[in-house]
């Protein structure tokens, strides 16, 4: 289990969290390579379907991360995202997915340091949960 390297899919909004990731990169801050970023224009465009697909394909964790409340470039996309994550947090745990595998954060464009820290923390937490059932078993 010690050498288990989780795969985490992160849907990050172009204007805040992605920019923070970029800043972390240009500032040469290291963060674990377990996190695969998928850049979206806004967290409000992340359909629950995308999250479900990531989990069924074997992701051990999924992160949705965008602008702080009030900062969304499309006004309320992050509030929509929050309701959808809430919805998924009601549905997925009923089928054995640990609720902690699905996370939502707000990371602003200038929070490069915070971005790297949160990624490290997230990877540690998901590592502790172990591999997701969907990674190990046949999914129909």
């Amino acid at each position, binding site marked *: 289990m010690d050498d288990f390297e989780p795969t985490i899919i992160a849907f990050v909004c172009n204007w805040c969290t992605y920019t923070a990731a970029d800043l972390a990169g240009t500032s040469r801050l290291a963060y674990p390579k377990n996190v695969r970023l998928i850049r979206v224009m806004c967290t409000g465009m992340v359909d629950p*379907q995308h999250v479900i697909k990531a989990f069924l394909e074997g992701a051990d964790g999924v992160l949705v991360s965008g602008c702080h409340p009030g900062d969304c470039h499309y006004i309320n996309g992050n509030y*929509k995202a929050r309701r959808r994550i809430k919805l*998924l947090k009601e*549905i997925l745990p009923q089928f054995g997915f640990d609720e902690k595998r699905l996370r*939502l954060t707000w990371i602003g464009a200038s929070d490069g340091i915070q971005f790297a820290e949160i990624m490290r923390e997230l990877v540690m937490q998901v590592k502790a949960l172990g591999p997701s059932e969907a990674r190990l*078993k046949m*999914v129909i």
Partner: protein
Amino acid sequence: MTTTAKLDVNNQDILLTLREFLQSVLQQNEISAILAPQRLPMKNVVMPVLITDPEQLNRADPLAPYFPLNAARLVTRLTRKPSGGKVAVVLRSCEIRAFIELVKLNQGQTDDIIIIGTDCLGAYSNTDYLKKAGDDPDAFTRRFCENALNSPNESVDDAELIPACRACEHPIPDGADLLIGLLGIDTSKQLLVRAQTLAGEELLVKLDLPTFEEPDARQKAVDALIKKRIDYRDRMFAATHEATDSLEKMTAYLAGCINCYNCRIACPVCYCKECVFVTDVFYHEPFQYLQWARNKGALKMPTDTVFYHLTRLAHISTACVGCGQCTNACPNDIPVMELFRMVSHRTQQAFDYEAGRNIEEEPPLSVFREDEFKDIVGI
């Protein structure tokens, strides 16, 4: 203004009384047609029929314990634009609730209809009904009501009803303009008619029925039935939870699914005009299948079965009314309703929402507030 009245029962025959009542509704000037469950002339199946000729109402059978489809979507077909007349629609409670959800999504509207609903005594499976009803379905409907209304514990003997009906805590059509009450009423003598909206009141006045006080026994009978339904529902939730609480168990639950998507076609609240699962998005490249097969050494085909059900749960569980038509439509006897109701119960509670309860309540995934669900944010 009168809000409750009675229908005197003609010759101890509820069915005949209801037919005559519907005829009197159709006689009103402003009513152009009635959409009601009617026994088809060529076979004893009961289908929603749009009726303009009062004679045709002699085969109406709104109490038949037969529920081949949820008519909510049919009502949206009649109301998506003005039809040039007013239609009285006779619906079950779950059909009304599904219709309310569709109205919220702008797929239908309520201006040109008047909704009539009877206390719902439930339904058998399609095949059970056809077997039981035999050659004299009128007599069967009468026997069914008699039995359902007069079983010893003052509530309904529903041991053989489909699970959706046994688990239904909404047997009273609260969303109807006019309600026809049977529970807790001496139905050998009269039926209760209650106006529940302004439109219902206006029609009731015109029908000029004798006034009637709702008997105290009614609330008791309604409460007893609802209690029984909730008990069954909670047992059903527990059993379904036990059968699906890991990915492995859930895939076993759905293992017989062939991705025919009948369940979404039958579902009244699956609202998309075109479902993504029947588009090219899921017509994967051949090399993709091989790649997936290599990942785990085996790939069940058709693919995306669990993906389909989880997506449908994400999209419509907050609108699910528990009508059971998904299960009814499944060629492989997968208890789809049980799964969807279990999850819906949670998702609707999470947003303090109940599908079909109130036409003014906005669907949970269409409204967003600044100050909510803060506890789910953060690492």
